[in-house]
């Protein structure tokens, strides 16, 4: 099947029939047969012996398998991680930042963050509270225009955030929870329908916010200077070294035209108010 995620198209095949309904639930409305694929990926069971004894699956991009096999029960998360890997390691025509992207009134805010900073919980909360989800995992930025492009992917929730987001938004579409992956328990959340995603346009980045969740912490906002912003942001660019000088000037342009903040927060409502009152123009 061909999955169109907006900026990229994946040809996906698998011998694991159990993940097909999951793929269809998340991407069913963007599956088509006419587009040319950017990436051809597979999730395949490993050896015949392994089909009976602790079954495992491998991810392939063309004939290349970049990861070690994982337990078969983690086939779907492996597909999502593999798709991220394909984009991050192959697309050198855009600046790819490890960041969530939320947009309101045509103004984009990107949230680069290290694992455990609460990025996906923050993304899910805002995406289901009036913001447009452009990405949970990767900001895809056009090198010529500096605009961030929307990509059609679910939000990847981990551990306790699965429980929280289900409690806040019980009517949303969640995949099953996959236990004990390398990132802990994982579930995916579908936020937009394909026709809603298609109505989104590339957006101007007005701010870069580095979030950090600290339990019970009152919202604390630090305004970063451009040097701090440049250094921190460049560390979150997947293809910074590959792009070389082009990436260097792309980051420079981004930080010159964006507000730069680091926030520590314990309440997503506080973050929402901060973004609406102090960041959006």
């Amino acid at each position, binding site marked *: 099947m061909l999955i169109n995620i907006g900026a990229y198209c994946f040809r996906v095949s698998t011998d694991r029939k159990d993940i097909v309904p999951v793929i269809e639930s998340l991407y069913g409305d963007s599956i088509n047969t006419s587009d040319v694929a950017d990436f051809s990926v597979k999730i395949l069971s490993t050896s015949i012996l392994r089909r009976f004894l602790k079954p495992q699956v491998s991810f392939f991009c063309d004939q290349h398998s970049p990861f070690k096999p994982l337990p078969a029960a983690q086939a779907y998360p492996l597909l999502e991680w593999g798709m991220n890997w394909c984009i991050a390691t192959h697309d050198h025509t855009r600046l790819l930042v490890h960041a969530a992207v939320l947009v309101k009134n045509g103004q984009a805010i990107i949230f680069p963050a290290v694992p455990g900073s609460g990025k996906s919980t923050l993304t899910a909360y805002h995406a289901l509270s009036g913001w447009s989800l452009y990405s949970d995992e990767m900001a895809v930025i056009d090198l010529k225009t500096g605009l961030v492009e929307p990509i059609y992917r679910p939000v990847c929730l981990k551990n306790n955030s699965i429980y929280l987001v289900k409690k806040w938004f019980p009517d949303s579409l969640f995949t099953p929870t996959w236990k004990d992956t390398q990132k802990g328990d994982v579930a995916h959340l579908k936020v937009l329908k394909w026709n809603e995603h298609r109505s989104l346009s590339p957006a101007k980045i007005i701010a870069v916010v580095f979030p950090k969740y600290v339990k019970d912490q009152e919202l604390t906002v630090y*305004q970063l*200077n*451009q*040097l*701090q912003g*440049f*250094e921190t942001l*460049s560390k979150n660019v997947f293809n910074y*070294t590959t792009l*070389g*000088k082009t990436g*260097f*000037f792309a980051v*420079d342009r981004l930080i*010159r035209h964006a507000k730069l903040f680091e926030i520590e927060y314990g309440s997503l409502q506080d973050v929402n108010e901060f973004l609406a009152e102090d960041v959006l123009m």
Partner: protein
Amino acid sequence: MSRSYVLHAKTDVVVMQDGSGVVLFSGFSGRCAFLQNQSFKVEDPFKKPTDTAVLLENKIQSFEIKSILSLNDVDTLKVEKWLLNNDFISILSH
């Protein structure tokens, strides 16, 4: 003693508009150097280094580390040595 430097042919520099410092990129190694302006204060967010135009427009001009970054003599030597060893700059004159 004043030392002047030229940037390597494959070194690019951007000066932060808010005066917070300078970032160098080496096209040889793909590495960046983030150099903070020691006199930068949040209260003066738009203070511009005086050498901005020189740096951006003409790489042959001397690269005056001490004045751009408001460093003392000891720190200037350390930064110069690091930039020299990592192929961001070359000595122009003594």
